[in-house]
């Protein structure tokens, strides 16, 4: 019986130490990035507030779906107004044909009427890689203690069709509503969809 117990404890131990990447329940890796206006933003300075990380690429049709339908801007405005810090991150590597300068990126966001707390450029893609961001959009929700509570897709309609936004189940909204109400997030991880992050 003792052996069984030891085995059982052994499995618990293995399970808690072998997870490699950034997943719900784990601390969100800290970073410092410069926004399109030249301001420095540090993730750990946001402790005490919910934070949303949104990976963006203006040239990606999946990103365009959520900006042309105003879906993303509406989320940014709604939750920005409820003390959620929304950080939009472009991890396109400098030198890639889709790389945007701070002026270009800021200009596009302004043109779309976007309203995140900050639009950040991750020129060397380091932050994107440290979060394991693979697609645009790829969404992360962080709780006030700095732990991830949601990682994955923005919604369940894996298409570029703008009309799908209305009928989609928005995982980010659900995660935020549940978190803000003090409840655990019911769907904490989903497979993200979109274009590859241009590393």
């Amino acid at each position, binding site marked *: *019986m003792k052996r*069984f117990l030891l*085995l*059982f404890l*052994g*499995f618990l131990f*293995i399970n808690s130490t*072998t997870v*490699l*990447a*950034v*997943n719900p329940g784990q601390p969100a890796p800290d970073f410092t990035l410069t926004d399109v206006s030249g301001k420095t933003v540090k993730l750990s300075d946001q402790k005490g507030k919910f934070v949303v990380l949104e990976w963006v690429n203006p*040239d*990606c*049709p*999946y990103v365009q779906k959520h900006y042309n339908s105003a879906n993303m801007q509406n989320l940014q405005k709604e939750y920005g107004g409820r003390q959620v810090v929304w950080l939009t991150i472009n991890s396109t590597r400098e030198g*890639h*044909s*889709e790389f945007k300068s701070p002026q270009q990126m800021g200009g596009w966001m302004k043109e779309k009427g976007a309203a995140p707390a900050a639009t950040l450029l991750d020129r060397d893609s380091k932050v994107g*890689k440290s979060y*394991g961001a*693979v*697609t645009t959009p790829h969404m992360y929700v962080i709780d006030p203690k700095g732990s991830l509570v949601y*990682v*994955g897709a923005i919604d*369940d*309609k*894996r*298409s*570029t069709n703008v009309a799908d936004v209305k009928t989609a189940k928005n995982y980010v909204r659900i995660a935020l509503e549940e978190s803000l109400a003090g409840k655990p997030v019911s769907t904490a*991880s*989903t*497979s*993200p*969809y*979109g*274009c*590859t*992050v*241009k*590393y």
Partner: protein
Amino acid sequence: MVFRFLFLFLFLGAAAAAPVKTDLVEAELLAERTAAEPGKTLTVALRLKIAPEWHTYWRNPGDSGEPTALRWKLPAGWSAGAIQWPTPRRLPAGPLMNFGYENEVLHLIDIAVPQNAAGVPANATGTARLAAHATWLVCNPERCIPEEGDLVLEVPVGAGAASEHAAAFARTRAALPAKALGMRFAATHTEAGVALEIDPAPRAAIYFPFAQGKIHNAGPQAWDGKVLAIPKALQPVGAFNRVAGLLVTDKESVEIDVPVAGTAAGLSGLGLAALFAFIGGLILNLMPCVLPVLSIKILGFAQQGGTLDRGALRRHGVLYALGVMVSFLAFAALLVVLQSLGNAIGWGFQLQSSVFVALLALLFLVLALNLSGVFEFGTLGYLPRVENPNAEAFLTGVLAVAVASPCTAPFMGAALGYALAGGPADALVVFTALGAGMALPYLALAWNPQWLRWLPRPGAWMIRFRQFLAIPLYATVLWLGWVLALQTGLLAGPSDWEKFSLEKIQQYEKQGKSVFVDYTAAWCVTCQVNKQLVLSRPDVEQALRGSGLVLLRADWTRRDEEITRALAALGRKGVPVYAIYRPGQEPELLPEILTRDTVLAALGTSKESPK
């Protein structure tokens, strides 16, 4: 006449339509034959000619991307199957990985032509119009462009011949992933992911998963000549408990679906399977089929109290434990031998024999009559009653295992599945643990008879208690009689569900429908309890009907190879199993013990999202 000739020329010559050309892709529907024959299947293809260095996607696009999709508009009565996906290529994008196609790809689709097809297309040309709205995402490492097109294929109805594309169809079909015949697989968890053993070993192998969020797509898959190391996803979505997808070797591409050992219970390793088996064994003692038998034995201890000396009691306990262990190990050996002979069997298989059920019913009847005092076997008053007390103790152990077999305790299903999916050594360990769990409480009492002091003093209550214990035994006899009646066909199984077949699941999946399968058997107590208390509840029944799920019942009361195979595919060897099969997803397993809430919750997530 001239027109007629023209139409003949246009439509009988080749059943094709104008391609849709975009900047990067030329898309066209092709037919394998020049005409659609009523009552037969016509295979058509979506052919994508893709610009150099661009690609479209497989059913699982990998880290990003989107699979090519078709929305059909067919004449009434016609139906289109799912896309038959050719083997994809790995397409790296920086540190990420996609799965897709370059240059040219044919997606085959089977169209079922109705028997009365000739009468349906009432257009002047006698052709049927097969229209599809196709959407595909085309990408290169720099950019992605979603494209779409409305494609039309006009096909004459009637007897036809091979079309000019028939050779391309044949080539594509020959290269489609095949069933993995003659290959054996074993998958186990490792720290880094899953180790897939392949026998016979190919020279090279790589795995493409059907589901997203299971493997680290871009991670290296190391092949050591025997075992393929598949790295797990960095951001996993759900458990990686099946290796379901394509295995591409130096020789061929095969479709596989291998349960990862030990994950049926959501945990891994032989040790945990053994732990579950041990707990399952403990719980077996409380099952309605076993409890009365053992209680009587223990009452015997209490009655004899002082008269039995310590040594004799202990010997009795050890022999009982031995009887349990030997029975379980004999059972394990029998299972392993039968399996190695290629018999598709599982836990409870002995109950599929009506002779065994009849004997068991008789045994329970005798026990029940005895308990209620209709007749006595002797002072101990209980079978097996043999003169030699040592043999009696041993046989009690054997009997306990025999009567326990209708009661697959919770936890045990997964452990048994693990044991039988693994090798003989695994089965040995798990069954030993099971036996140890079942024998332990009795052995402990035999060792420490002073614990019996907690029982009231022997007296008249013991007779009443014995009579009371006869009730579950009578119930068991009734129930076994019912099982027997079903088995021998005296009674028709009450079922408003569709009868199960693997083919049906595939057909419904092709139609985009999800399927709920109730794997059950009349002799399975847990199954009947779930059915009565949960599945037959009016609100659950209503939810099931309203869920849009097709309800299939797989009745394992009698031996059924197909059901045994379906259970094996789920990593299970016994019933109950409740599985929801959704198109393009891994089957979802519900717990062995159902509650209203778990069923309703599972149904709640079953709503199909229109693609």
